């Protein structure tokens, strides 16, 4: 049952020691952390940089003129530049800090909703939704890229539509072409599915959507951490991702947008640091990114995220992508070969991210997860915030193993071995 691992064994294993979060024992076994799709562990370098900032230059940014405030503001804006470079933004003004990816997607949806309610002046008219206008997502979306659009449709009277998925949970460019109409105003989809590992052909989809005049919103949560991104090159209009999935902290996410769009989109949250003039009659707002960063910003988190990005660059995004793609293929091949195990998503040999969700016949995902946890193997069980997709697959829950740069072949071995034993334990054979 245990596959001996391939040529590139341990190619990235030297980085493991950088991650204290991987070191604990769980239930007397070494931890095999296969839940990085939910949240990643963080290298000491990231923890150190954040702490050093807090111990030496902690101050409010963009609000004070004293030395600490100036140093903090500089570090904060340098972090923005680092992330801008990382995802191929035209300028750091295209990078907006949010609280997570969910918040970033809500920001765009609420911005459009506010435009529809007459906020934002004439330049916001491009975001106004009229009844009959369509908002398009896919049936495979994470709730974060689904419910905000559904709610926007409900608030504005626009029509909420979706690209249906096939029996394996994937969808193709033809499916998208069939669903896009000349009333489609927004097409929102995930670059990489957090359930199936399916990789969307973003550039082609963006071209198609722009052909009907739709804005393209990319959920980059499962791609930004794992592969080199060139958002401008991909041709999308907005993109969202979360720091905590890419070695950074919770409490901070990123919205990237084309600058002219961000400057035209009405604000979402309002308050301090995002205004030009406030009177008791009305207020006016700064351009992006300050426009969207109301209140005290996630300062130390931005600085930690920038260090996470530098760490990822030191390891190399290509090496990470290659390593995980190989582990992903191992998952689909080896789990799929076990009797009674059904892996959802792309078949063996087809491009997929380094994750696999699977169903074990006769054993509920919760029990599978618990059984593996007793062996120190951390996987996620449930609907992975994608209920419609699971419903379409005829499942209420799956077990998901997801990898990162620090994942090892040995961990995959242990997982496959564990899953091979689970049906017998629960008498499901």
């Amino acid at each position, binding site marked *: 049952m245990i596959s001996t691992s391939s040529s590139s064994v341990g190619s990235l294993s030297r980085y493991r020691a950088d991650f204290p979060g991987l070191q604990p024992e769980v239930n007397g076994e070494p931890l095999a952390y296969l839940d990085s799709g939910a949240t990643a562990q963080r290298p000491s370098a990231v923890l150190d940089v954040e702490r050093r900032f807090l111990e030496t230059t902690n101050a409010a940014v963009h609000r004070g003129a004293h030395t600490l405030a100036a140093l903090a503001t500089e570090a904060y804006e340098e972090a923005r530049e680092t992330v801008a470079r990382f995802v191929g933004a035209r300028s750091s003004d295209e990078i907006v800090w949010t609280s997570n990816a969910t918040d970033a997607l809500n920001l765009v949806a609420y911005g459009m909703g506010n435009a529809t309610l007459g906020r934002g002046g004439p330049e916001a008219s491009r975001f106004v939704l009229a009844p009959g206008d369509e908002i398009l997502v896919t049936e495979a979306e994470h709730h974060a890229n689904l419910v905000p659009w559904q709610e926007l449709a409900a608030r504005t009277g626009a029509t909420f539509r979706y690209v249906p998925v096939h029996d394996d949970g994937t969808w193709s460019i033809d499916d998208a072409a069939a669903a896009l109409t000349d009333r489609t105003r927004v097409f929102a989809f995930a670059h990489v599915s957090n359930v199936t590992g399916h990789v969307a052909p973003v550039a082609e989809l963006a071209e198609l959507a722009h052909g009907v005049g739709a804005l393209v919103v990319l959920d980059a949560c499962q791609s930004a951490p794992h592969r080199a991104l060139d958002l401008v090159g991909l041709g999308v209009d907005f993109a969202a991702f979360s720091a905590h999935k890419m070695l950074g902290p919770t409490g901070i996410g990123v919205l990237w947008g084309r600058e002219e769009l961000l400057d035209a989109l009405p604000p979402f949250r309002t308050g301090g640091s995002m205004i030009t003039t406030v009177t008791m009659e009305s207020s006016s707002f700064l351009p992006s990114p300050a426009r969207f960063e109301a209140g005290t910003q996630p300062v130390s988190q931005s600085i930690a995220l920038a260090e996470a990005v530098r760490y990822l660059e030191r390891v190399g995004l290509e090496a990470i992508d290659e390593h995980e793609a190989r582990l992903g293929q191992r998952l689909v091949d080896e789990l799929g070969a076990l009797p009674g195990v059904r892996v959802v998503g792309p078949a063996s040999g087809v491009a997929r991210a380094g994750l696999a969700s699977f169903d074990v016949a006769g054993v509920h995902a919760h029990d599978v997860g*618990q059984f593996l946890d007793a062996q120190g193997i951390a996987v996620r069980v449930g*609907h992975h915030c994608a209920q419609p997709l699971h419903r379409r697959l005829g499942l209420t*829950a799956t077990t998901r193993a997801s990898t990162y740069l620090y994942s090892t072949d040995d961990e995959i071995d242990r997982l496959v071995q564990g899953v091979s034993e689970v049906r017998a334990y629960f*008498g499901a054979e």
Partner: protein
Amino acid sequence: MSDALAGLYQQVILDHAKARTGDRELPGADAEHYERNPTCGDEITVRVVMEPGTDTIRELAWQGDGCSISMASASVLADIAPGLTLAELAERTEAFRGMMRSKGAGEPDEDLLGDAVAFQGVSKFVMRVKCAMLSWVAAEACSTQLVAKVR
């Protein structure tokens, strides 16, 4: 297999999860309640038939989808319930809840809970407590309906 796992999945639980008592429709039920655990998607519908004109349960049945803990817990409940008055069921529900909140400490009352004491080990697994409680919470809601009817 590890001790931790054996503590959770007592043989009683594994058995009930497979050979389920009361996993069926119950036509003409006097009360019915659907309960769902949104975190994991487990769901259950509990139905109760009363001895006519009394506050004694004749039968409790359920239909649901979920993990072995939630299914076994419903099965044990369906074993225990018949013959109990609503007040007696409430007493057992409180005892079960108390056990589930004990985080592995405390001595459950075996006379009161019967086979349900097998779930003592679940209380150490905070994330699974809701699974074990699911059918009991649904039965509690049925009781509330029935008491309201009587009034």
